[in-house]
């Protein structure tokens, strides 16, 4: 008898558990019936589940709360929603499916691109090739002679496909062009020399029309479409450690690798150990680990003590830019601060010289805003004609390794000329152009890709009169179009 009672209790318990657990399946929330979009909402969902449903189906949280309350009709987002109470803790929220095709207010321009933008967002996919901001990288070729890199010249060799008619190389260095970079037929295969800056590049060969990864390159990355690209680094530094030939393992690690003690394995050479590496422009602190024993690079005179007083070697990659401030020789302290270091007010203390202050500082190519802090007082660089913003928000501006000069050869009498565009989010504070030899100019460093822009001449937006490329925008006016090539 006891057993039966127990079983009954257990069954009741089980039944209770099953019914009280609201079955949560986001795939079953939404359906379409006779032109109505219907959402089945379960009152027993956890708060987390409710939030997820709200996010997946773009249901306003207030709308959800009202629906749970059982309010029969709710106006939300300009639409009328109907609520129907179902049995067992379910409510159904419905509205007619929006059936009109997308139209802008004037009914002329479709905004259908939005559809794909939304879907891109959902699938976490931007579609644009991402700019590689990798800090460091090391090659991994199966054969040492299939890739060499010396003084900005990269040689790719494909020792195969002798009978192919045409072989091209396509990669991030040529915008993945399938036609612009043919390889030369050489003995036993195909070869090409390319002028490449140090950096990380993805590439493939196109052999008689067919995309092929480099068979001798072990370094590959997913291309986002279920396939792979070969990856190569054009190296700009070589770590070297003389001696220690009897060591079984030598690795190098540093701030570029978050001081990971696994390090990056170095290769044995005739007189020690070496590792060609690509390092992004910047300053790096490093050490070697010889059979798990830490040591600094005794061949490198540049050392700094770490917080515990140990010596670390450091290297600077890239050319330093010399920030200079004339005069202020009576000041006690001048600090350089800018967008490059998060506007730190302490980090970059400048050195006093006879005529003022200076500080060499390595920066990657790019656009930067900066100021000097002279004994606590923020000032712009009055020797630099280029600035951004106005009044208190005015900052000095520098484009390191600028690759485009915006030029406006008209309006010499204008007071303010600004260039603004997709490169700065169409900021109307924008980049203030400077008059030089009767022309308005502004230099910028722009990554390869497409940019749209306009000039603002004393408040009036105009197209670049010297650029024949322009396209329509959402205001049914036009924007000038600029392409920066990868080369």
């Amino acid at each position: 008898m006891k057993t039966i009672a127990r079983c009954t209790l257990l069954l009741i318990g089980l039944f209770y558990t099953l019914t009280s657990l609201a079955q949560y399946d986001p795939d079953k929330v939404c359906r379409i019936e006779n032109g109505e979009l219907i959402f089945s909402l379960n009152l027993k969902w956890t708060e987390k589940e409710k939030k997820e449903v709200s996010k997946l189906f773009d249901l306003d949280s207030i709308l959800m709360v009202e629906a749970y309350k059982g309010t029969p009709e709710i106006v939300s987002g300009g639409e009328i929603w109907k609520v129907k109470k179902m049995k067992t803790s379910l409510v159904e929220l419905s509205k007619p499916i929006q059936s009109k095709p997308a139209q802008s207010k004037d009914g002329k321009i479709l905004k259908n691109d939005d559809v794909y933008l939304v879907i891109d967002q959902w699938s976490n996919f931007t579609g644009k090739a991402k700019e590689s901001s990798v800090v460091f990288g090391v090659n991994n070729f199966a054969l040492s002679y299939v890739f060499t890199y010396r003084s900005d010249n990269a040689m790719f060799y494909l020792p195969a496909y002798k009978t192919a008619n045409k072989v091209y190389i396509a990669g991030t260095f040529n915008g993945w062009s399938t036609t612009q970079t043919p390889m030369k037929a050489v003995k036993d295969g195909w070869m090409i020399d390319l002028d490449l800056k140090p950096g990380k590049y993805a590439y493939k060969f196109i052999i008689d029309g067919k995309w092929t990864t480099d068979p001798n390159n072990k370094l590959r990355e997913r291309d986002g479409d279920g396939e792979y690209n070969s990856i190569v680094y054009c190296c700009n530094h070589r770590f070297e450690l003389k001696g220690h030939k009897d060591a079984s393992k030598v690795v190098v690690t540093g701030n570029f690798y978050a001081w990971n003690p696994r390090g990056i394995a170095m290769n044995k050479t005739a007189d020690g150990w070496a590792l060609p590496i690509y390092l992004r422009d910047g300053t790096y602190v490093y050490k070697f680990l010889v059979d798990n024993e830490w040591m600094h690079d005794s061949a490198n005179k540049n050392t700094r003590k770490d917080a515990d007083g140990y010596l670390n070697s450091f290297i600077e990659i890239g050319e330093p830019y010399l920030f200079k401030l004339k005069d202020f020789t009576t000041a006690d302290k001048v600090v350089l601060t800018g967008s490059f270091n998060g506007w730190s007010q302490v980090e970059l203390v400048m050195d006093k010289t006879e005529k003022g202050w200076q500080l060499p500082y390595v920066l990657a190519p790019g656009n930067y805003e900066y100021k000097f802090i002279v004994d606590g007082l923020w000032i712009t660089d009055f020797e630099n004609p280029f600035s951004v913003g106005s009044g208190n928000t005015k900052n000095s501006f520098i484009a390191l390794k600028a690759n485009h000069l915006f030029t406006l050869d008209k309006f010499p009498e204008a007071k303010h000329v600004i260039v603004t565009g997709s490169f700065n989010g169409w900021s109307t504070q924008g980049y203030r152009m400077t008059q030089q030899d009767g022309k308005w100019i502004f230099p910028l460093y722009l990554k390869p890709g497409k940019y749209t822009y306009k000039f603002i001449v004393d408040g009036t937006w105009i197209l670049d009169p010297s650029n024949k490329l322009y396209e329509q925008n959402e205001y049914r006016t036009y924007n000038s179009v600029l392409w920066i090539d990868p080369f």
Partner: protein
Amino acid sequence: MLSDRIKYRLFFLALLSVATVFMASFSPSFTTVSYSKSVLTSVPNSIIFFQSNTYMPEFNLHADSVVIPLKRAGRLFLIEANVDNETGNLVFDTGANGLVLNSTYFRNHVKSGETTSSGITGSVGTVEQITISKIVIADLTYTKLRADVANLGHIENRRGVKILGLIGFSMLRNFEIVIDAKNSVLKLFRIDKTGKKLKSSLPEFNADHIQKIEGNTNILFLKGKISGKILNFCFDTGAETNAICSDCNRSIMNTLTITRRSGLSGAGKASSEVLFGRMNDFAIGNKQIPDMETIITNLDALSEAYGTHIDGMLGYSFLEQGIICINFTRKQFGIRFTKREEK
């Protein structure tokens, strides 16, 4: 609701000269074809191409076939091309009729005419036409062809690549067309009047399913089945997702899973409601294709634009299913499905 670009698609619905229908069966075996220099002829073959009342592009190809690498920008397939000395990409978009060029680069070409366009909104406007002297795509050269001009800047801005235009089937009709999306390759084989490959030693495409191409338009319509009902789909390589009509019959709607929605309000949202989900019960021939991503939308305007009722569009997620072979002369569409383990 689908895509801007559709707005600009032009529909010459009564254009085609009489096409003789030759039905030939596909025999098995299909191998990759590459041509060698030995088959090049010294005199290029100039063939008068697809004839319509206004549109007569000519092409030159020295070999019997050409392999064109496709580039991808997100879910778009791009063909690198040189159009009147401007180098860039053409979106391979079989939902577009003819050639549509981006006004950013071609607005200064001399206008050769105007034509009416109808788009997904059902609105009618005029589109400028220009004449292009030369287009080079891999080893294929077209001379003297007409193109419509439209603003395609939004595709560039979204995908970050230079888009010279859109290319649909009209320029490719005189080839047997093989689309291998998985390997990002488009292969074109020259065919004779009967639709047979010029180089007879080339094997025929081995298809798992063959469907007769109905009608004479440059837009390809395919019959697919959902919930036992036969539906009319537009085969659109430019559609970044499949689409299915939101007002289809209830038994069809019941087979869909709606996984996401984007409403109308709020910053950065679409200007219309977007419903996204999966087709669970789609079949073409006897082949069930489960789990294809799709948007769910009203396709009335698109039907109106294409001049025929459309229940859905087969785009990117369909192309991923296998290798597709299209022969307009034989009026045949064939597909060989990628086996699961190959994916």
